[in-house]
């Protein structure tokens, strides 16, 4: 952005048009319309800009920076405001899909907790706003003094900025450490040891016929979750008539674990023993030892592993045989939750297992390196240097070590020793709060930048709108400082960061042998980057020095009765999501708890400790104490307790601050290459205090109501219906009506329906319908976030969630299921979390529940004012303006998917500038009215209008609902049921198809496809 535009918090008409000019010319920048206090009056366009048609959305291609995966995004802007993020279909990593974290980066852009302008520490310890020039001068001066005593801590950025930062630091003779809290160092270390390759390979879950994960949460934080989920849906979602068996070996089931067909609750830290034993069985049974590991593996017998893991030798043998039988199979390890001191051994073991099973090159693909950081050791060394006063100036960018490292590591104290500390963060996070100078950088959606998540993928980021606050791109800051500081930095001559980036892309063009760099650039801007096929996987050979394989018995500090587990929160990741209300209110997919921390305790342990849901317990490790309410969770070992990461912020904005506890407080100072999250034992103390869990779960049992149906694989293969499958299991459906009665009932129903064919209803209309494949749904809840974003759904906050008033138009219900169908008797259950204590080790079933747009909707006739009515194209309409709020419709909705505005949520949910995220196409509902899923009617009408203008029928797949668009497993399909060619119409013919609560004859427009179970062959 040109300098003369600063400071950009005044927008007179002239500047308004200047920006337009830039917009039209640059083809990328968007008309300002963001922060409310700027535009005081509406200004008519004198010159209609090409890409700014009021009321028409403009889409920009960019790259997501919420985690190090580097997914491609499409940003939807309206009148110069980013309003929604969706996956970039062309992007090889995420193929058009986007997880909740990625979608929520919109709330990072408009976050009230952002630093609004450069600030400097004042005498009284506070911060005072300063101008950019002043800020740059200050930093330049300090750098000139500091000479080479400069340290830079950055995130895992692999791209032009990363390179610039590297060169820049090098020029100063300073030290650069790239710190990524979840950098999966053990995986890379193991690959170095076993294959001599320092990388995090890609994993083809779609190709695998048998998957075993040793605590790697590949659907949540491990590697490239969206990509993994896509593959997992293919192999495990009954896509080509088969389901790969998926076994999860870990002390705790996370979301990935809940999607497993079998959970083997091994002792914490014993993964390596299991993996090696499987490998040895496999080698022995296959009787070929090309790898020459038989000897090394010899000592790892099932018996020995049984000893270590607590499984039976038979089970281990079975797992090994199953793993060997399926070709190709896939074993993964190195999840954060199970990252302990000897994790590298685990990954080595798993590498060996994959290698002997012949998976390397099949499902484990090297060559396409994933982003990496420098590991914890480097950071620890740097911290030492700070301690020793070897650092005069420290810059922290895109990292928050003061929060993401255990307090026991003393990082904060060491950083404090540095004379001059500078933060280049957009938010006032824990680390920034320690700094002397705050240089707020642009949000990813406000700046030019790029990212190379892996070989062959060059993702480009572009500003989709005028900056919300007075911020700069980090690269711009470096360059301006260089200009001021001169000296060794004089060689950075690029006039602006944008120019620098573009020049690098010109180099890239030549590097990739592109003739016309301008065309290359434009296509990159248009498509969100340049995507080349990954290089052919290299020939991978075993580089295991003298074939030694080690297994170290896990040791845990502290003498508490429980092993302490902590793991990345599925929504908050390492805590960077905790300032975003969407991620706080979108319940954790496993526990269904929102807004606060909890302690997971197994039912047996709960009985032993005499604690129940919501009882606050104190966990004590050698390094600290934390207090949190108990959540009794059947998916954790009896000798372990778990607290999710991501809570307990002491800074980072009003949403994050003082919310829950930081699990890291229980950990010791990391000593190795990585943070051993699994390293302590804790004592659990009752406090006698309670707090109601802010859970969105009612009774987590189906009580035999067939809400989330499932059938065994062989039944599905034989194309049985749910009814038939049930019948085969002796749950025959008992029909009380005679044939004649059924005929009469049916005939009467038809007559009623015919009688509705009146007025406009008699004309030709499409009939919108949806199908949801439970075999594919993993419960990841990306659809929920998409729904919040698309439909302006307010987040109601912890206190209202406690009163069951969350507004989730689309919610993911998670039912505990004992072996077999149904489960539960009438009268079973109780209230919310209290009753969420299922029998031992049940399986979970996820079912997305949204308005079923019933043909005979019970909600409609009871509305006295026609606020709820049926549209001619089969939608269950809800007219907010008509609604007087009798709430009868909600009482009469059998699916309970109607939500009422008890308070003025529309005035509370979006504190400035968060309200700028609102989708102009969707009404923001007032207090006192009922609302619910509309099948994204705004998208339907928009498409219909376009079709009408072009005088053509709507093409199937031309558009879809927000949830279907976001679903990484493509479990949700939407379309016109009347069009026999449409995908949804075809899927609705599937034998697995059923309607929830079929028997009450409300004729839902949503068809669910039963989950397909892959039980152990007896």
């Amino acid at each position, binding site marked *: 952005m040109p300098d003369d535009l600063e400071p950009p918090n005044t927008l007179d008409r002239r500047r308004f048009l200047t920006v337009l000019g830039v917009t039209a010319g640059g083809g990328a920048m968007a008309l300002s319309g963001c922060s409310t206090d700027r535009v005081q009056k509406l200004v008519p366009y004198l010159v209609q800009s090409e890409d700014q048609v009021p009321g028409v959305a403009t889409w920009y291609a960019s790259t997501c920076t919420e985690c190090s995966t580097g997914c491609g995004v499409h940003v939807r802007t309206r009148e110069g405001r980013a309003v929604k993020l969706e996956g970039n279909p062309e992007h090889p990593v995420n193929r058009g899909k986007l997880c909740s974290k990625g979608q929520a980066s919109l709330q990072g852009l408009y976050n009230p907790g952002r630093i609004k302008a450069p600030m400097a520490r004042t005498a009284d310890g506070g911060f005072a706003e300063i101008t950019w020039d002043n800020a740059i001068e200050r930093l330049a001066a300090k750098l000139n003094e500091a000479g080479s005593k400069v340290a830079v801590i950055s995130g895992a950025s692999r791209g032009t900025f990363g390179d610039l930062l590297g060169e820049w630091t090098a020029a100063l003779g300073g030290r650069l450490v790239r710190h990524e809290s979840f950098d999966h160092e053990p995986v890379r270390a193991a690959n170095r040891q076993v294959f001599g390759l320092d990388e995090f390979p890609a994993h083809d879950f779609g190709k695998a016929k048998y998957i075993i994960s040793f605590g790697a949460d590949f659907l949540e934080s491990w590697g490239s979750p969206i990509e993994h989920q896509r593959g997992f849906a293919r192999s495990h979602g009954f896509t080509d008539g088969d389901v790969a068996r998926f076994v999860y070996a870990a002390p705790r089931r996370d979301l990935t674990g809940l999607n497993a067909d079998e959970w083997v609750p091994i002792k914490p830290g014993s993964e390596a023993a299991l993996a090696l034993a499987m490998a040895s069985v496999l080698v022995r049974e296959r009787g070929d030892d090309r790898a020459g590991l038989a000897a090394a593996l010899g000592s790892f017998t099932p018996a020995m592993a049984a000893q270590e893991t607590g499984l039976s030798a038979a089970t281990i043998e079975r797992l090994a045989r199953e793993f060997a039988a399926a070709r190709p199979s896939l074993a993964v390890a190195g999840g954060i939750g199970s990252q302990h001191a000897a994790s590298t051994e685990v990954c080595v073991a798993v590498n060996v297992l994959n290698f002997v099973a012949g998976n390397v090159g099949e499902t484990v693909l090297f060559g396409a390196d994933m982003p990496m950081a420098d590991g914890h050791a480097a950071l620890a060394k740097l911290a030492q240097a700070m301690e020793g006063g070897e650092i005069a100036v420290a810059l922290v960018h895109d990292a928050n070590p003061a929060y993401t490292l255990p307090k026991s590591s003393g990082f904060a104290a060491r950083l404090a020793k540095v004379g001059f500390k500078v933060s280049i963060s957009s938010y006032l996070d824990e680390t920034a709060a320690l700094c002397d100078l705050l240089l707020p950088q642009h949000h990813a959606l406000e700046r030019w930048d790029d990212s190379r998540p892996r070989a062959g993928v060059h993702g480009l980021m572009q500003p989709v709108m005028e900056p919300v606050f007075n911020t700069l791109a980090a690269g711009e800051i470096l360059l301006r400082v260089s200009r001021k500081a001169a000296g060794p930095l004089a060689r950075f001559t690029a006039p602006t960061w944008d120019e620098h980036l573009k020049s690098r892309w010109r180099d890239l063009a030549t590097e990739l042998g592109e003739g016309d760099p301008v065309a290359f650039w434009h296509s990159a801007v248009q498509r969100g980057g340049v995507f080349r096929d990954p290089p052919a996987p290299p020939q991978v050979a075993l580089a295991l020095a003298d074939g030694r394989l080690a297994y170290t018995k896990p040791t845990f500090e502290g003498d508490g009765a429980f092993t302490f587990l902590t793991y990345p929160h599925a929504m908050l990741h390492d805590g960077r999501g905790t300032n975003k209300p969407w991620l706080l209110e979108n319940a954790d997919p496993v526990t269904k708890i929102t807004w606060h921390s909890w302690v997971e305790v197994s039912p047996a342990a709960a009985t032993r400790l005499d604690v129940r849901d919501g009882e606050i317990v104190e966990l004590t490790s050698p390094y600290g104490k934390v207090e949190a309410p108990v959540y009794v969770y059947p998916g954790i070992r009896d000798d372990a307790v778990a607290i999710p990461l991501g809570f307990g912020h002491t800074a980072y904005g009003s949403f994050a601050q003082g919310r829950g506890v930081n699990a890291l407080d229980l950990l010791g100072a990391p000593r190795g290459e990585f943070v051993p999250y699994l390293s302590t034992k804790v004592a659990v103390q009752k406090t006698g205090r309670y707090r109601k869990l802010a859970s969105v779960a*009612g009774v987590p049992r189906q009580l035999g*109501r067939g809400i989330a149906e499932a059938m065994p694989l062989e039944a599905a293969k034989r194309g049985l219906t749910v009814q038939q499958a049930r019948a085969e299991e002796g749950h025959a459906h008992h029909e009380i009506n005679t044939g004649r009665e059924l005929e009469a009932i049916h005939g009467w129903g038809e007559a009623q329906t015919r009688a509705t064919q009146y007025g406009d209803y008699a004309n030709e209309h499409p009939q919108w319908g949806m199908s949801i494949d439970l075999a594919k749904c993993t419960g990841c809840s990306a659809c929920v976030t998409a729904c919040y974003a698309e439909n302006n759904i307010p987040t109601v906050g912890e206190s209202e969630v406690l009163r069951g008033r969350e507004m989730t138009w689309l919610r993911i219900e998670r039912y505990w299921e004992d072996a077999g169908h149904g489960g539960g008797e009438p009268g079973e259950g109780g209230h919310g979390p209290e009753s969420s204590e299922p029998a031992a080790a049940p399986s979970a079933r996820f079912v997305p529940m949204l308005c079923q747009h019933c043909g005979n909707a019970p909600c409609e006739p009871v509305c006295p004012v026609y606020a709820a009515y049926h549209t001619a194209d089969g939608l269950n309409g809800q007219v907010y303006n008509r609604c007087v709020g009798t709430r009868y419709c909600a009482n009469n909705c059998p699916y309970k998917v109607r939500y009422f505005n*008890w*308070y003025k949520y529309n005035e509370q949910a979006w504190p400035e500038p968060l309200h700028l995220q609102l989708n102009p196409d969707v009404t923001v509902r007032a207090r006192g009215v009922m609302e619910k899923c509309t099948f994204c009617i705004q998208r339907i009408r928009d498409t219909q209008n376009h079709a009408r203008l072009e005088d053509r029928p709507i093409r199937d797949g031309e558009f879809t609902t927000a949830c279907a668009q976001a679903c990484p497993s493509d479990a949700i399909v939407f379309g016109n049921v009347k069009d026999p060619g449409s995908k949804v119409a075809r899927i609705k013919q599937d034998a697995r198809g059923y309607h929830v609560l079929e028997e*009450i004859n409300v004729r839902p427009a949503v068809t669910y496809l039963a989950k397909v179970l892959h039980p152990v062959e007896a």
Partner: protein
Amino acid sequence: MASGHVITQTHADVTRDVVGTLSPPSRGYVLLLLGAVSLFLIGILTFLFLIKDGLGHAGYQPPIFWSVYITTFVFWVGIGHAGTLISAILFLFRSPWRTAVYRSTEAMTVFAVMTAGLFPIIHIGRQWIFYWLLPYPNSRFLWPNFKSPLIWDVFAISTYLTVSTTFLCFGLVPDVAAIRDKATGWRRKVYEMAAVGWRGTDNQWRHYSRAYLYLAALATPLVLSVHSVVSWDFAVSIVPGWHGTIFAPYFVAGAIYSGIGMVLTLIIPLRRALRIEHMITDYHFDNLAKLTLLTGSILFYAYGMEYFVAWYSGNIFEQTTFFRRAFGPYWWAGWTMIICNAFVSQLLWFRKVRTNLTSLFVISIFINIGMWFERYVIIVSSLSNDYIPWAWDQLNPTWADWGILAGSFGWFGMWFLLFAKNFPIVAIQEIKEMIPMPRKRGGHH
């Protein structure tokens, strides 16, 4: 003249005694009135909060979208059924004992319905547009949805209010005329207007008596229909525990039961306060108690039948609902209702209990409590567990719920007290009709 009940007064005594009830208020009366008014003000205040911030203040906890307000609405509508029943149905049955009590019960009816009528307005999300439920030409070009039970309610309740008010005023006219002729000063002017020129001429009596008969004939099906319609608010839905064909008769019986309960609660102290013990006697209470016993037993049967049908239907949704009603989180409410209504009423088999005012009064209190809880159980506990277990939850009523509840009692009490002091609480003219006039030839006609 009915057995066990002989009026030993002359017409003159009747006029004197009844006019006597209108004497200047005692301190006790004033205190009661102030109490009622302050309760009413609490209600107003609560309502202002609801309007300012939204219904969120009340303890609504989805899936329970209706709770204390609708409970109290049905409670008051129910109360409103005794009056018309006694004054209209018993009039058609020519049962003599109604005469002494029907005026007070009719007044109670009108005020109870006035109270109930407020709730549909209070409980909706956007109270200021409640009138959208009325069929009037509007800018939305939209008429109400007559398929909605809530619209049936609008018509049933407003019709009931109009007709029962008419009925009350109609019956009052001759009595007001009688008071007019005794009153003096400004009060005379007021009663003069209220009496709309009534003089008791042969011609007036001729039309009056006929019309009264027809009003009674119209009010009788009305009183039965109104609570049936209210019951259909629930019965036509698909909520397990609501969706029952038994509901209309079940609710009507309950309504009358609760109504008579409230009648007893009111007139037992009233007759003492107004010194009309010789007009409202054991004979009347005995009959009221018998009616209570009858309706109470019908309820007993209805409760039993609900459970039987739930079990016999083999419908797991119904089964779950009723299992949890008895043993689930709402067991306490469920048993309160069954004990207060089904069991306590059975004590009335004993004549001693029926004629002992203390025991009657205590029982009447139980009835009021029991009937409020009946509605609470039907509404809240049914909603708390319907089809999708994942959505189940429990209600936590708040100050906003209790505030409105208290306000409704204040509002009702205020009107009733004002009425009792300014209008004949016993029907002068009908009592006189029952007293044989003196004859110079003596003996009976």
